[in-house]
């Protein structure tokens, strides 16, 4: 009985200590201090970040697939070089992000395995197909534009390694959006067929891009605590509105029509109001039923499996060299 009593009191003390530490932690966040890997943090903060950063990393990696589809078919060498550089950047962004997630105590292998097993999510947008060259323009202009809108506030996220990774990502990402807009500009100033191609791509991508900001504020699961912890600085709807307001004049300049007949400028607020988003489609795509979910997962698994011999050979070679230098030293 005595032992049990001791245990109880210990557990209670630990809770008290945790409550005190949690309050201290929140005070640091409120003072805009950055949290670093070895600092104490609530388990839920760690879990939220591992989930968010690894999903972000998976998105960068899966995001290479829709664009990679067009590298060999880019219309000019200039476009091809730019697209190749962009896809290389996405890979780099994935790696920065995995490294940031790893500082929280999960290995990259573990995180990648979760993705390959279909247990981790990645951005819904990459489950849509790239049917024409104009899709590459729209991805740069709108998909990367939306990503930048999301990522700029993350540069001030409370978790140091994530914030620092986002600063690098945002610096590099701005070329992505500009090269996309340039593609759209060329097409929309081109032949009738090219204009139609640009409009068709905008029609197909507009709504999925608006969904990238996540569920509406009234339905978001993670919003409140993430805001309190300063992981998130703006709500989904706020960012979506900022994006729409920035994008409408850009579309007007291109002479393209946003596929939302209900869209109108609210003269009082100065904001562009958009029609209701089909959240059922979003749910379906996240649940694995989008147009390309199975293709994307199959492509990632194939790349992982076909790269296995490279990983094994590199590890074996490193081990052989280690043993040889140990033998020489002996």
């Amino acid at each position, binding site marked *: 009985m005595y032992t049990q009593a001791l245990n109880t009191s210990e557990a209670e003390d630990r809770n008290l200590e945790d409550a005190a530490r949690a309050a201290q932690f929140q005070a640091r966040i409120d003072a805009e201090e950055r949290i670093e890997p070895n600092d*104490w943090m609530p388990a839920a903060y760690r879990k939220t970040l591992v989930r968010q950063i690894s999903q972000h990393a998976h998105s960068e990696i899966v995001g290479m697939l829709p664009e990679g589809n067009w590298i060999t078919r880019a219309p000019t060498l200039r476009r091809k070089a730019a697209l190749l550089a962009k896809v290389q950047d996405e890979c780099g962004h994935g790696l920065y992000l995995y490294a940031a997630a790893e500082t929280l105590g999960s290995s990259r292998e573990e995180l990648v395995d979760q993705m390959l097993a279909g247990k981790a999510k990645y951005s819904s947008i990459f489950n849509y197909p790239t049917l024409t060259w104009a899709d590459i323009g729209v991805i740069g202009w709108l998909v990367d534009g939306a990503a930048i809108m999301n990522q700029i506030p993350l540069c001030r996220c409370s978790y140091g390694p994530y914030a620092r990774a986002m600063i690098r990502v945002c610096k590099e990402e701005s070329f992505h959006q500009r090269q996309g807009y340039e593609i759209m500009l060329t097409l929309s100033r081109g032949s009738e067929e090219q204009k139609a191609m640009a409009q068709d791509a905008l029609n197909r991508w507009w709504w999925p891009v608006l969904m990238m900001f996540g569920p509406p504020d009234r339905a978001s699961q993670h919003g409140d605590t993430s805001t309190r912890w300063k992981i998130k600085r703006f709500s989904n709807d706020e960012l979506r509105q900022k994006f729409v307001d920035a994008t409408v004049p850009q579309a007007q300049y291109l002479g393209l029509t946003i596929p939302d007949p209900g869209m109108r400028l609210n003269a009082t607020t100065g904001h562009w109001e958009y029609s209701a988003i089909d959240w059922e489609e979003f749910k379906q795509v996240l649940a694995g039923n989008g147009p390309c979910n199975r293709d994307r997962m199959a492509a990632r698994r194939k790349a992982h499996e076909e790269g296995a011999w490279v990983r094994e050979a590199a590890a074996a*070679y490193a081990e052989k060299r280690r043993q040889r230098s140990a033998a020489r030293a002996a």
Partner: protein
Amino acid sequence: MATPNTPLWEVFIRSRNGLAHKHVGSLHAPDATLALQAARDVYTRRGEGLSIWVVPSSAITASDPSEKGMMFEPAESKIYRHPTFYDVPEEVGHM
């Protein structure tokens, strides 16, 4: 055969302006040669550096953040280590 987790390396880059090598991030590689190549690809795609160091993360010894008070307090109380602590008359000019 299960491949062991690939070791982690910390990457330091000396930028063009001649400053010291600065930590830029980390990466995984089986050995030092591949770590250098990966660091080139991951961290210097836009001419960010003229020199790269890679160091096995396991070789780094870090101070304990929970003891930072004790660790850095000795410097905080010694304001006389800063030039502004000393009064020099204005007539003397810049010193």
